[in-house]
């Protein structure tokens, strides 16, 4: 079983929809939770970073962490075609390497 599970999609939504992307994990020692966006043939770009349970909002993006359920989410409001990309959840323990989810492909249709 992988440490981090992420549905690879693809997830296809109409423009303006609310998108929900999710990851589950098995290692309760994970303390740091990140979401990256990766466009085709580009390096991953950090979107959200948090180290506690609860919600963190940045513009149209909201990251949610539920440590008790070992479940993290990224919500995108008013999705745009420019949001079409692969979204990666990335977790780490204190002092340790990053652990990547497989990435979810998102397609926002205009």
């Amino acid at each position, binding site marked *: 079983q992988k440490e981090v599970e992420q549905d690879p999609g693809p997830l296809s939504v109409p423009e303006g929809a609310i998108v929900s992307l999710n990851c589950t994990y098995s290692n309760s020692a994970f303390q740091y939770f990140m979401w990256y966006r990766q466009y085709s043939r580009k*390096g991953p770009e950090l979107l959200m970073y948090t180290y506690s349970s609860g919600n963190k909002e940045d513009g149209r993006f909201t990251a949610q962490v539920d440590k008790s359920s070992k479940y993290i989410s990224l919500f995108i409001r008013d999705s745009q075609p420019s949001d079409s990309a692969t979204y990666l959840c990335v977790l780490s323990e204190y002092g340790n390497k990053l652990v990547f989810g497989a990435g979810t492909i998102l397609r926002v249709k205009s």
Partner: protein
Amino acid sequence: EADIYQTPRYLVIGTGKKITLECSQTMGHDKMYWYQQDPGMELHLIHYSYGVNSTEKGDLSSESTVSRIRTEHFPLTLESARPSHTSQYLCASSIGLGGEAFFGQGTRLTVV
């Protein structure tokens, strides 16, 4: 915007050639990483460093080698390139313990 740079962005090279992929960051980060990613596939960690003169192999076995003589510089070398090395190579850096990582734009390597 992250200050981490990779050169070259694209490289096409013949079998048997020695190549070095450059990665530099100006953020003073102590941790640096190299990942390999095939199109549409997951990232795989091939090397990492926790500081100067520290290098470790990652989860995916690689014939490449790395060095960390300066904090800001983490080059990756292939002594004899083969077509099986064709892939995208991504460099990243992070600060402290558990800090968020910043990625370069990647080097797309094609060995013919």
